[in-house]
């Protein structure tokens, strides 16, 4: 009895905080999303009306919602595989017995991860400046005309994706590195005896052995990338022509710029449902292929 009481006493403060400031708001968000909570309701709660699924229906008929959804999916579908590929490549390089100064390189690759998104996004805005950015200067030296990276609707999202890959690859790299270190050396030995070269060793030993780690990293990276917000907020303000406005950016604008908190909650829930659906799909696919 006293033991149970002690357990509850120790867990209570954290559980209370999480309940009041997370679980309760999540439940309230669901309720909020079926109301027309706006700036009038913010002033006087009597202006609040129940609107059923109107917010959701309205969003599904809103071209801007589909636009932001398309942008977010673009970012996820291109950004996640690219990030994972770079992370895996970096991890393989660091794991290679041929490399030198690995401690230094590992730290160097990881440094962007701990930096503040806003601050490094500011740097990238200047690196990719059309007229005096280092990137266009580098390209001009090999004869490529200046590209309006952040001002051209076709280039803005690829630039943000590059930024995200640069900023994040170090994180997954560490996880892959631990995965690589746990693959028994005999497997490579056996593959070499069978005459497998470096690429076939990677393809038939490394990748299958990393299967579960790849799945985990894929899911974590994806759920992070679905939450794109600070990068476009600082680098492009969602433009040009709304080509970098993400779903969360729409939620922020709806909720905290126009104070349509009901509609913003509906946006958040639609994103959440989409994330769960994509994650479940990935898990289902992995199970069918027998990764787990």
């Amino acid at each position: 009895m006293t033991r149970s009481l002690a357990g509850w006493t120790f867990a209570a403060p954290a559980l209370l905080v999480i309940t009041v400031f997370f679980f309760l708001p999540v439940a309230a968000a669901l309720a909020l999303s079926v109301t027309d909570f706006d700036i009038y309701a913010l002033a006087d709660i009597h202006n609040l009306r129940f609107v059923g699924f109107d917010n959701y229906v309205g969003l599904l008929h809103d071209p801007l919602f589909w636009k932001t959804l398309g942008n977010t999916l673009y970012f996820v579908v291109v950004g996640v595989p690219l990030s994972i590929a770079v992370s895996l490549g970096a991890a393989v390089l660091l794991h290679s017995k041929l490399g030198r100064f690995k401690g230094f390189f590992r730290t160097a690759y990881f440094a962007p991860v701990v930096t503040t998104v806003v601050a490094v996004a500011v740097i990238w805005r200047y690196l990719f400046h059309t007229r005096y950015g280092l990137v266009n200067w580098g390209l001009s030296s090999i004869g490529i005309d200046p590209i309006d990276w952040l001002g051209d609707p076709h280039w803005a999202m690829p630039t943000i994706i590059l930024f995200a890959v640069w900023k994040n690859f170090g994180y997954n790299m560490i996880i892959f590195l631990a995965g690589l270190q746990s693959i028994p050396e005999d497997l490579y030995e056996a593959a070499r005896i069978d005459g497998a070269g470096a690429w076939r060793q990677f393809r038939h030993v490394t990748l299958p052995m990393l299967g579960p780690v790849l799945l985990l990293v894929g899911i974590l990276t994806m759920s992070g990338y679905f939450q794109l917000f600070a990068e476009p907020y600082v680098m492009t303000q969602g433009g040009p022509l709304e080509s970098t406005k993400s779903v969360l950016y729409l939620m922020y604008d709806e909720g905290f710029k126009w104070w349509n908190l009901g509609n913003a909650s509906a946006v958040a829930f639609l994103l959440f449902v989409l994330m769960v659906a994509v994650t479940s799909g990935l898990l289902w696919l992995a199970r069918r292929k027998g990764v787990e």
Partner: protein
Amino acid sequence: MNRTFAIAVVNGLLVALAVLSLAPLLWMLSVSFMQTGEAAHFPPPLLPAVPTFDNYRELFAKAGMGRYLFNSFLVASCVTLLSLLFNTMAGYAFAKLRFTGRERIFRLLLAALVIPAQVAMMPLFLLLKQMGFVNTYMGAIVPGMATIFGIFLVRQYARSIPDELLEAARIDGAGEMRIFFQIVMPALKPIIVTLAIFSFMAAWNDFMWPLIVLSDQDLQTLPVALASLSREHVQDNELMMAGSVVTIVPVLLLFLVLQRHYIQGLLLGSVKG
């Protein structure tokens, strides 16, 4: 011959990737010491002609950088201290103390990890407004006082504390509080250090929530202030780079000094979970 070639390729790629990783950060540092307008030339200069501290002086004297730095330190430190205490207590309870509903609650917490924090933001804002915490430091601190991830991390580690150690203390008549502070906390020291780095960095780098809850300029944290400065001073490269340096350097130093603990925690939190 073949091996020499392979060594050259591997090391060459390692160096190239390091250049790509560090170049933006080094360039930021270099531009932050340039005269106003110097970086807006083509081709862009790599190093300042005459290094100057003017940008930093202007940031602190006119743009209120000292204030933002203080805000960031205050918010991140409070979040770190409070969440360390609460997460450690809860993580220990979930690992070592039997209480009714323990397993069920823990499973619920794990399941809730899939819910993105942004879903809660609109009602959370209204709740904090009711409590009078909007536009106060409390508004930025309170929601971070405990995290599911932190509880999970501590629990994973605390499971390795031998039960006999705790039992022996109980037989000697030690109360649960004394056991926690005198036996459990010291045993958890490595994970507490790790969690402290994680919490501090997360709070320091957080952007969306402080942006929403701290609209008063005097209360803004560095990322929020930097984002609004960068909208006002679009042309002022040198000043903005100095602002980025001030924002990044504290967390980067923290990482460099405590790197080992940070990476340990990262692996404990993801791979073994």
